[in-house]
């Protein structure tokens, strides 16, 4: 494994850093203050990202995307992690799962999402089914050449910006050693389908301006042609394509930690108390040492997993370790950064309190830290029959 940047990777990261600094960071305070990204700003950033050729960087070049490998994508996500997610998200990263599109789905969903004409979101969670995905109650029932969908999804990120949803619903049930479990299928559902309603979700402490929504399905009739992958095999589709999402969360956490550490280091090197720079006190300098060490550990875990993904050798445990290590590192780094700055660390003149707040959701979404530990330990114990 060699994580040294090639000239091309260095230029790609430089481009993203420049884009973030010029096009996104200037809007941070406005988004934090209002809790929204104005529609005209969404349109402006989208157009600039398309013009800059950095939109849909995760998608294959032959489909119109950026064509980046997973390691470079992790470096790009880290650079985007410098700013807040509400702005970052606009420079879209369509769900990798769309690469499972077949036939007319390619022209109807995959290609227009890569080109910025359409925006996707993904719905899995329900009020009574979080980590226990196979306990979901939202279901699709076959009726001729249609499916009829009924139920509710919540915590659906950026559904307010999307015009369709990659929906995971129960289409049956099977007996397992641990009792009956739902069979899951995935569908592409347009929001203008009769019976589909997108309503505001909850106010969240993390990621102001990046909204979670609730989607209600009231006997919505969806053509069978909207089935993504095979019936009852939605988990296969998810497992094939969603591993990269955990790496994305990990890589963004690195970027947030970069910024928090940078602010704390600058402060430690310039603020004087008791007649000397506070970085001279071991109580502060050792914090910086621990923060840097944990950040480097998480960097190694994340880039290792991304590199293995490029070699087609990444396991679920590799991705889980990257996410677990990076998101828990960010919790530590953002908290210690605030401790170094003292009271100023909690003021919104600086980005630390935002990074600290935003970090909280990263240990929950895309699989809680406990679920990641479950995945890692399962990979250790299963070969032993435990």
């Amino acid at each position, binding site marked *: 494994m060699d994580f040294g940047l090639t*000239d*091309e990777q260095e*230029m*790609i990261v430089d*481009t993203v850093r*420049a884009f973030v600094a010029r096009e996104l960071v200037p809007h941070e305070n406005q988004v934090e203050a209002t809790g929204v990204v104005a529609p005209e700003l969404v349109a402006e950033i989208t157009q600039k990202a398309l013009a800059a*050729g*950095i939109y849909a960087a995760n998608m294959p070049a032959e489909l119109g995307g*950026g064509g980046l490998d997973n390691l470079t994508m992790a470096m790009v996500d880290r650079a985007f992690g410098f700013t807040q997610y509400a702005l970052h998200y606009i420079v879209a990263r369509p769900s990798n799962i769309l690469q499972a599109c077949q036939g007319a789905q390619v022209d109807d969903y995959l290609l227009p999402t890569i080109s910025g004409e359409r925006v996707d979101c993904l719905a899995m969670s329900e009020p009574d089914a979080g980590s226990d995905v196979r306990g979901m109650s939202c279901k699709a029932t076959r009726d001729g050449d249609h499916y009829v969908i009924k139920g509710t999804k919540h915590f659906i990120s950026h559904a307010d910006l999307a015009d369709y949803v990659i929906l995971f619903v129960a289409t049956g049930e099977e007996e397992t050693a641990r009792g009956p479990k739902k069979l899951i299928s995935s569908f592409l559902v347009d929001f203008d389908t009769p019976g589909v309603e997108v309503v505001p979700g909850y106010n969240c402490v993390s990621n102001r301006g990046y909204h979670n929504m609730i989607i209600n399905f009231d006997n919505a009739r969806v053509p069978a042609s909207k089935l993504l992958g095979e019936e009852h095999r939605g988990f296969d589709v998810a497992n094939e394509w969603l591993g990269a999402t955990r790496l994305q969360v990990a890589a963004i956490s690195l970027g947030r930690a970069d910024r928090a550490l940078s602010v704390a280091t600058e402060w430690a090197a310039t603020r004087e108390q008791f007649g000397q720079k506070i970085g001279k006190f071991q109580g502060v300098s050792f914090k910086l040492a621990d923060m840097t060490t944990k950040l480097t550990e998480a960097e190694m875990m994340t880039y290792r997993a991304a590199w293995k993904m490029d070699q087609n050798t990444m396991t679920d445990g590799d991705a889980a370790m990257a996410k677990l290590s990076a998101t828990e590192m960010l919790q530590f780094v953002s908290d210690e950064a605030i401790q170094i700055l003292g009271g100023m660390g909690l003021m919104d003149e600086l980005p630390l309190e935002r990074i600290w707040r935003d970090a909280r959701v990263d240990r929950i979404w895309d699989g809680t830290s406990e679920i990641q530990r479950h995945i890692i330990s399962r990979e250790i114990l299963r070969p032993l029959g435990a």
Partner: protein
Amino acid sequence: MKVVVCVKQIPDPADPGALDPETNTLKRDTKLILDESDSYGVEMALQLVDAAGDGEVHLVSMAANNEVGGLRTALAMGASSATIVSDDALGGSDALGTSKVLAAAIARQEPDLVLAGTESSDGYTGVVPEQVAELMGLPSVTFAKSISIEGGEAKIQRQTEAGYDDVECPLPVVVSVTAGVVEPRYPSFKGIMAAKSKPVDELDLDALGIDAAQVGWAGAGQEIVAVDEAPAREAGEVIEDDGDAHERIVAFLDDLKIL
């Protein structure tokens, strides 16, 4: 239409390195990047070729060790090809020595238009474009804020203190472009990946037919005898407002001939 853009590769201003104490010149042993002031010329050239519907943008640069880090950025923006001139004898070149090299490299391209930044961000001599024009026997227009090609000639708005001059000029012409007049595009990911396979012609003084005695330290007509730190800014005058502060401000600005 063929547009040649002069591109300087400079030490990263964020990590500029140090001065060589013997020569009082900037050490250039770090990675070099595209001088931001030249990115405006690159962008303008790309826009002109787009507007023409046909043509190419070629870059010309001079740097040690065939360094192309900055050129790759401009190639990733969309330029088609580049020339890099490197030669051990070029160390210590002054502005005129640099212009001789650039003029010879540009002439090989037989361009319709030559663009350059008004001045580099590390040397700030601000004379190279005009010297290149003189050496090539071409007209020179400076401080362009916009350029269009119409009827086989260049129509240029030339920035002045009071506004701008409309200038019309036959092609080929050397034009220096004012910073900030266009928004340089970001190198796209596809452009970055494509840049590594774009042709970069590596030339030395022999290839250009230039006598080494005319350039570098040997040919330099100038010597940097000393470099001193800029004096610290002096504290300004604080005016307490006793009701006449506005008059004193007006008088102050009047003394500076701003009003």
